[in-house]
């Protein structure tokens, strides 16, 4: 019944509003520190791999396409297609996390995890990091005080992407559960509410990334 869809999707929207405020606190912090420590943020963002970041954005956008396709399949009662869409979304979510893991791992290797043997060497002495130095040869060495503020950038980077990744993990777990149920035909009998509401959640997580991507990766890429 329409009423039922309405009620739960309204509840889902309210939940998403709480999520907006949840990430809102992070974005607010980011904004303040970015204004304070702009040079540090620029230099630190050059440490992120734009290739992996862009790839991840694309992965999420495609998964954001397969998800409403899944809803459409459920609407039009195509069970096989629904399962396929959900599986695709599931796999894309995993791909995203895999790429994210690779990025995190690189940060760990480079001592860019806050407090974890954090090193400002790449910023006080760009030549010590030949890879990034080649891409951004004009990056001047930061004075030590500014270089230290890159730790705040990475703190925010891990907090924001970490919270986002946590949402992805929760989403993927629910997806797994949904695939299981979809194969039993649970959503192709007219009950699309669950799929639809999960879609809303999944898109929200996507939107968060749409903002994280330019804010964290694209601060100032021109050399």
């Amino acid at each position: 019944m329409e009423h039922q869809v309405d009620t739960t999707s309204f509840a889902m929207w309210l939940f998403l509003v709480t999520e907006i405020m949840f990430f809102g606190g992070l974005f607010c912090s980011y904004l303040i520190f970015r204004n304070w420590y702009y040079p540090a943020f620029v230099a630190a963002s050059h440490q992120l791999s734009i290739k992996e970041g862009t790839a991840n954005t694309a992965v999420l956008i495609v998964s954001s396409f397969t998800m409403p396709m899944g809803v459409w399949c459920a609407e039009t009662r195509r069970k096989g297609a629904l399962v396929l869409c959900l599986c695709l979304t599931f796999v894309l979510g995993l791909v995203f996390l895999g790429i994210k893991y690779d990025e995190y791992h690189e940060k760990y290797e480079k001592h860019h995890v806050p407090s974890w043997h954090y090193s400002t060497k790449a910023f006080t002495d760009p030549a010590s990091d030949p890879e990034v130095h080649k891409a951004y040869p004009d990056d001047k060495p930061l004075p030590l005080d500014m270089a230290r503020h890159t730790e705040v950038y990475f703190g925010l980077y891990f907090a924001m992407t970490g919270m986002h990744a946590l949402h992805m993990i929760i989403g993927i777990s629910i997806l797994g559960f949904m695939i299981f149920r979809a194969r039993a035909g649970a959503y192709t009998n007219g009950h699309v509410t669950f799929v639809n509401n999960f879609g809303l959640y999944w898109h929200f997580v996507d939107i968060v990334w749409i903002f994280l991507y330019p804010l964290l990766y694209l601060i100032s890429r021109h050399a």
Partner: protein
Amino acid sequence: MSVHNDSHAMQPHGGTGHDHDANEQDVHDSLNHIVSPVVYITIAGILLVMTAVTAAVSFVDLGVFNAVVALFIACFKASLVVLFFMHVKYSSKLTKLTLFSGLFLFGVLIALTLSDYTTRAWGRW
């Protein structure tokens, strides 16, 4: 009239759990408006293109406008996702109002916090 409990209904996420009345079991509880896959494909295409654009633009030096353009494109992409993928374009006023209230309060959080940070340097504190 009694509440029928779906076994899968309890999820750690608000709203994802739901209940059906026993007499609603075979009613088609579809959305108000079924969006055709063509729209989805178009939107996804635009989103991918915009991603490429925003990445490319960041390599061009526009001064402060780098941030402006990046955020503008992000907002544009987010709006597309919200309007089409999340069906807000076809949703009730209530949904729109809910979304708006969240964004409004986010604006309040930013604006009033900045009212402290931006005016600290006026005069001696």
